[in-house]
């Protein structure tokens, strides 16, 4: 039986770390190959991690909310199976993480034959103490006073009655607990943070651990959509973008999201110059249209991607299924990637019109407001028309206002086709 690490899987090309969400198994539980043992979260998606082999979940090392680098162990599996990791990673194997062991300490030297003069203090021998050089008793700013003569060894004292056997049978010397030198604040912080001071390299005077020697307080990245949105939208703020609004005539129907989704995708297919991204100083066109659909979920905003929705006859069902799974947290990674534009519809909330930020590197985003009947001029009088104001946000590096206007004209055309 060997112990094999269960590692944080790499579930996308860009994934460098994942967050442990929950364990479905406990330490000591039997697991079967392919059985789900835990869930981890990437940027937006929770993924199930399966046991790579039959065995027993021996040790869990990552707790919920722990952020673990790809390839680092999250648990250890006791298994009879061989070579669990074969082919799992092409990268060099992750740094082995053995169970933390106390640093090997030189055991205290066997007690030397006791001299008549007592040692200054019978402290437990430590590595630090062993290295410490004799310190002058009281540092003075001026050596005005003559140093006291070194105390002469009191040879006259009789030796202890029972002579200490020298080179006696070498018994295993019990290793004294390590007392590392550390300032009180470092000790306190180490206890609070669960850090073993023996693992810290002291840089203070007299090999003392300073507070600054402790690893910097890890600010746990807030996991989940909020963190992703924060990161992406901060990047978005760096993109020169503008918004073009247009009041669109909408056909009677009802499933506006599907209607707009299809129209936006179709319009982008007609205007490939905007179905593109700014990369390396140039506009790079995409060979597919991917519409990221902004979905309001209990965990925050998710934007699963519909690939080429304009080519899909069963789009409405696909949208419903995607929205349902987004809200259930059951999206796949593939469904989270490949967006070339974003559609956000707040019409259902009664919003008339709004400005959506781009999700870089996407070059466009369409913000859809409320669809409602409006009084409009018709030949010979006034009439009612189903209208909706949309805002098209465009990366100005990729396209101009006229490009945006042309795209919106196509959206209008496709809506009423």
């Amino acid at each position: 039986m060997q112990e094999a690490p269960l590692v944080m899987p790499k579930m996308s090309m860009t994934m460098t770390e994942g967050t442990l969400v929950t364990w479905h198994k406990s330490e000591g539980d039997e697991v079967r190959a392919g059985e789900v043992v835990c869930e981890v979260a990437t940027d937006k998606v929770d993924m199930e991690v399966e046991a790579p082999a039959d065995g027993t979940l021996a040790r869990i090392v990552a707790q919920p909310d722990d952020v673990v680098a790809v390839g680092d162990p999250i648990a250890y599996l006791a298994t009879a199976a061989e070579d669990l990791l074969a082919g799992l990673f092409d990268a060099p194997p992750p740094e082995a993480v053995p169970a933390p062991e106390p640093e090997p300490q030189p055991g205290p030297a066997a007690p030397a034959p006791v001299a008549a003069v007592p040692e200054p203090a019978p402290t437990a021998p430590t590595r630090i103490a062993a290295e410490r050089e004799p310190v002058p008793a009281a540092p003075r700013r001026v050596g005005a006073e003559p140093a006291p003569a070194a105390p002469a060894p009191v040879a006259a004292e009789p030796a202890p009655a029972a002579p200490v056997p020298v080179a006696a049978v070498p018994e295993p010397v019990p290793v004294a607990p390590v007392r590392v030198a550390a300032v009180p604040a470092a000790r306190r912080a180490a206890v609070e943070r669960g850090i073993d001071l023996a693992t810290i390299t002291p840089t203070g005077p007299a090999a003392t651990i300073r507070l600054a020697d402790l690893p910097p307080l890890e600010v746990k990245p807030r996991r989940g959509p909020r963190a992703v949105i924060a990161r992406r939208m901060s990047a978005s703020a760096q993109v020169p973008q503008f918004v073009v609004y247009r009041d669109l005539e909408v056909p009677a129907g009802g499933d506006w999201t599907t209607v707009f989704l299809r129209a936006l995708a179709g319009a982008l297919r007609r205007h490939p110059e905007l179905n593109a991204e700014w990369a390396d100083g140039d506009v790079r066109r995409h060979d597919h249209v991917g519409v990221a659909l902004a979905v309001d979920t209990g965990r925050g905003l998710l934007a699963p991607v519909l690939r080429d929705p304009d080519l899909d006859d069963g789009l409405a069902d696909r949208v419903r299924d995607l929205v349902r799974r987004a809200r259930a947290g059951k999206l796949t990674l593939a469904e989270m990637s490949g967006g070339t534009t974003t559609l956000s519809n707040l019409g259902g909330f009664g919003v008339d019109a709004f400005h959506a930020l781009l999700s870089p590197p996407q070059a466009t985003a369409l913000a859809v407001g409320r669809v409602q009947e409006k009084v409009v001029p018709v030949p010979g009088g006034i009439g009612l028309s189903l209208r909706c104001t949309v805002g098209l946000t465009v990366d100005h590096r990729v396209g101009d206002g006229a490009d945006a206007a042309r795209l919106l004209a196509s959206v209008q055309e496709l809506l009423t086709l």
Partner: protein
Amino acid sequence: MTAAAEQTRTLTYAEAVREALAQAMTADERVFLLGEDVGTYGGAFGVTGDLVHRFGEERIRDTPISELGIVGAAVGAALAGMRPVVEIQFSDFTAQAMDQIVNQAAKIHFMLGGAATVPMVLRAPTGSGTGAAAQHSQSLEAWFAHVPGLKVVMPATPADAKTLLLAAIDDPNPVIVLEHKLLYKQSGPVPEAATPARLGEAAVRRTGADLTIVATGVMVSRALEAAEQLAADGIDVSVIDPRTLKPLDAQPIVDDVIRTGRALLVQEAPKTAGFMAEIAATIGESPAFGHLRAPIARLCGLDVPIPYAPQLERAAVPQAGDIVRAATDLVRRW
């Protein structure tokens, strides 16, 4: 700001002491002064000045050169219901009066079960810096702070010189007020009203993030000067002046060290068995211990008699530059 606090004038430390004496004598006929040359001469450092002309020789009493006799007379007068204020020309000369101070004044209230009190004040110029050599330049506050029954005050500003002296005169038991010679000519705002301070209340002179400096006497102004230089170097320090060594108000010190994690204790007196050792131990015994991110450091006078040569005299006690260096070292290394 209270009305009393608004009514301040700029006085020198010496003038502030004189004003406190005059106000106390005006308010209470039992208050009288005695000491060598406090009358016509106006005091060795000019502190009593013209008081003899304002209050007369009965209340401003010149005495023979006999410190033991002066303090003995004061102890007796205090026991008899008077409120004597003794001036010893140099605090070094209290050595001559130690038996009366330590064995009589400090103990009578205790030994008589509280039936008698010794409401006596002993003022004495302390410290170095005036070229007065070894027998006129010592800082002996630790001697007195060590004796149960004595209160010890070290005013660092003109305002404190006045209000702490008023508090000392009000106190029913002996109080030693150690006035620094170098401060006598320094000016500062002094309240006009005769409102005493409270003995046992430290002053937080400045609050900083990196280091707590505790300083007494003339070292308070040097620490504040050093704090300015340190601030320019990006080191932000607190300066706390205990003002009363005994009773000691340790809480502000402990609280500040909990914040900063570092303590630099500065005194003019020699390091060995000095008062800052008491402060260090107090911090070490307090909840601040667990917050220490550096060893508690002391910056003190050398363990030498104060030299006469001005350069050596300066070198024997901490100067502002020494405080800057010690503080920088403490913050940068830890």
